[in-house]
């Protein structure tokens, strides 16, 4: 298992390099340039100096290699320094956002807590809702519960989050006034009152995303359970005289979890990636909002870095899913 993991990690290096190049070229070739963000009133020679200072005039490959160096050498050193108080990265050029003129990773560091709290809890709640629904729908296939679950899953999956989000805002914020429609990033949780406030402002975005996630996961759980419920070993378990609870939760569920775990693991990067649309709707100041802002502002370093981090997470969680497979299914051996 360890050898397998290490081999996969080694193989991930060329993959990620290729991905970073592809992203860099895509971002670079996309229409729009940082020059267009400079007001027209700025004289041309000043403009040229600004662009030169940004390093935009360099050839693509120079900028790419520079970015690689900054991403893989400078930023880890900065992280090391801030953790252990050393000074290795002094004087080195970090990845600087065109928009804010601040290091990209500083912005990411500011944005990630909001994203993790909101999207992370939405994902967790989605899983917690989806598993029981999926299990029970499969166990009572075609019952009214199953039909209702199927309907809700269909709705949750097919109605886009910008619609459900606005709908919930109209109902619960505008008409009923129960929850705020805007997420207040400056709120600090210090006592019960502020915690309660935090829960309140998280309620709507979490509901929207949890519904969406639960819809997908419950479908996978249901179909996987159904597939296993009709297997011979389930009949064997019943013939052994096991209780229905044992049959379903021990025999069927454990065997059904394999595809479900894969789906959950592969969905993990979206927690870090943020839900771009939902964050926009509820004004959650997270990673997704940062990405959208960067795209609007032609902030190439920010877009490039964020996109590459998402790509890395996807590659990483693919590996995690594969390794989990080996733990869940004794028939799979990575040697």
């Amino acid at each position, binding site marked *: 298992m360890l050898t397998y993991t290490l081999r996969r990690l080694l193989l991930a290096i060329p993959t990620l390099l290729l991905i970073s190049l592809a992203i860099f070229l895509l971002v670079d070739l996309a229409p729009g340039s940082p020059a267009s963000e400079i007001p027209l009133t700025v004289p041309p020679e000043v403009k040229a100096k600004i662009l030169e200072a940004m390093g935009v005039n360099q050839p693509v490959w120079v900028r790419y290699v520079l970015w690689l160096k900054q991403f893989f050498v400078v930023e880890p050193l900065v992280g090391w320094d801030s953790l252990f108080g050393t000074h290795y990265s002094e004087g080195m050029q970090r990845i600087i956002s065109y928009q804010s003129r601040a290091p990209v990773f500083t912005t990411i560091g500011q944005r990630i807590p909001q994203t993790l709290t909101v999207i992370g809890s939405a994902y967790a709640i989605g899983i917690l809702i989806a598993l029981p629904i999926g299990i029970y729908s499969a166990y009572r296939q075609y019952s009214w519960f199953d039909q209702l679950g199927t309907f809700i899953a269909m709705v949750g999956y097919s109605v886009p989050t910008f619609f459900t989000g606005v709908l919930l805002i109209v109902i619960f914020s505008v008409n009923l006034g129960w929850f705020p429609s805007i997420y207040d990033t400056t709120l600090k949780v210090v006592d019960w009152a502020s915690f309660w406030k935090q829960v309140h402002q998280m309620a709507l975005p979490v509901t929207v995303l949890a519904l969406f996630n639960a819809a997908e996961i419950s479908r996978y759980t249901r179909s996987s359970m159904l597939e296993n419920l009709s297997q011979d070993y389930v009949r064997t378990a019943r*013939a052994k005289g*096991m209780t229905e609870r044992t049959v379903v939760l021990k025999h069927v569920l454990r065997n059904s979890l394999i595809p479900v775990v894969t789906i959950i693991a592969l969905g993990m990067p979206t927690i870090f990636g943020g839900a771009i649309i939902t964050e926009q709707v509820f004004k959650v100041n997270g990673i997704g909002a940062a990405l959208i802002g960067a795209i609007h502002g032609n902030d190439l370093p920010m877009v490039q870095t964020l996109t590459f981090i998402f790509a890395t997470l996807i590659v990483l969680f693919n590996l995690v899913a594969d390794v989990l497979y080996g733990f869940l299914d004794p*028939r799979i051996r990575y040697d």
Partner: protein
Amino acid sequence: MLDALPAPLVQVEDLKMYFPIHTGLLRRHTGDVKAVDGVSFSIPAGETLGLVGESGCGKSTVGRALLRLYEVTGGRVVIDGEDVAALAPEALRKKRPTMQMVFQDPQASLNPRMSVAAIIAEPLDEHTPLSRAQKLERVYELMDAVGLNRRFANRFPHEFSGGQRQRIGIARALALNPKFIVCDEPIAALDVSIQAQVVNLLEDLQTRLGLTYLFISHDLSMVRHIADRVAVMYLGRIAELSPRDALYDRPLHPYAEALLSAVNEPDPNRARRARIILKGDVPSPANPPQGCNFCTRCPKVFDLCRAVKPDLTEVEPGRHVACHLFSKPPAGTTGPREATEHNQQGVTQ
């Protein structure tokens, strides 16, 4: 053995197992697949009843319905004094140790994520108060009994060969000291070389533990080897139920005759029975013929067969046949067979 009638261990009366068919926009109940349609037999303790028939005739369904792995549509299944078909769920669960099943596909019927020890010990966890050490001891004991090396206890089913997996399946079935075991084509998925081993193991266990078997198979030679009596099924009904030797020497029901004519004679010096080739296909169990289920393919069919379903009746001591050829003369007379058959030969054209 057959005449003396102590209360049999297994008594099946008019067992019916219909699977509903739902069709149309509203998925209304429009019919039934009559997989088992009124089957009755009994098995005295310690006996092996062979159940043979072609694919799809309902053999396996009988086996599963007997152990109530299906909710039966009708009939009684009395096993060791209790009507299994009518037991409440919890009582049924408590009853399970008495009756066990060896499944056809040893690969699919073992949970791929449980080790051999866990598979065999699971019923012990559920039904016995044994300690951990005692359970492990019992698992080893069972593995010895079925000829599996104790070292394999912590392996998973996929690491075994087909024959070994079937041994695991048998050990599992034996774990709770059952009285009655349904062997549902236990050798069908195995290599020929392994089949004999498994059948011998089953026979050996029967002698040692006094087990009662319902041995379901389409392998007629294997059934001849292991069974005391044999029931021949056709389209959800029993065509003939006779002692093994009598059946194999001289099948009475035309279907049994045709089926057994397919058995190869291993001794080339002995004359081979003339092969009877049946024409046509088995009718759909969703829409069986009005009269005798076999009337569409029977070489000896006559008018009565197409109108009235024959019941399984004892035509000779110990021999039960569901065929109008034998039901016409008054029952109980000895040796009517020659006469009837002669009689029938004239009728059949």
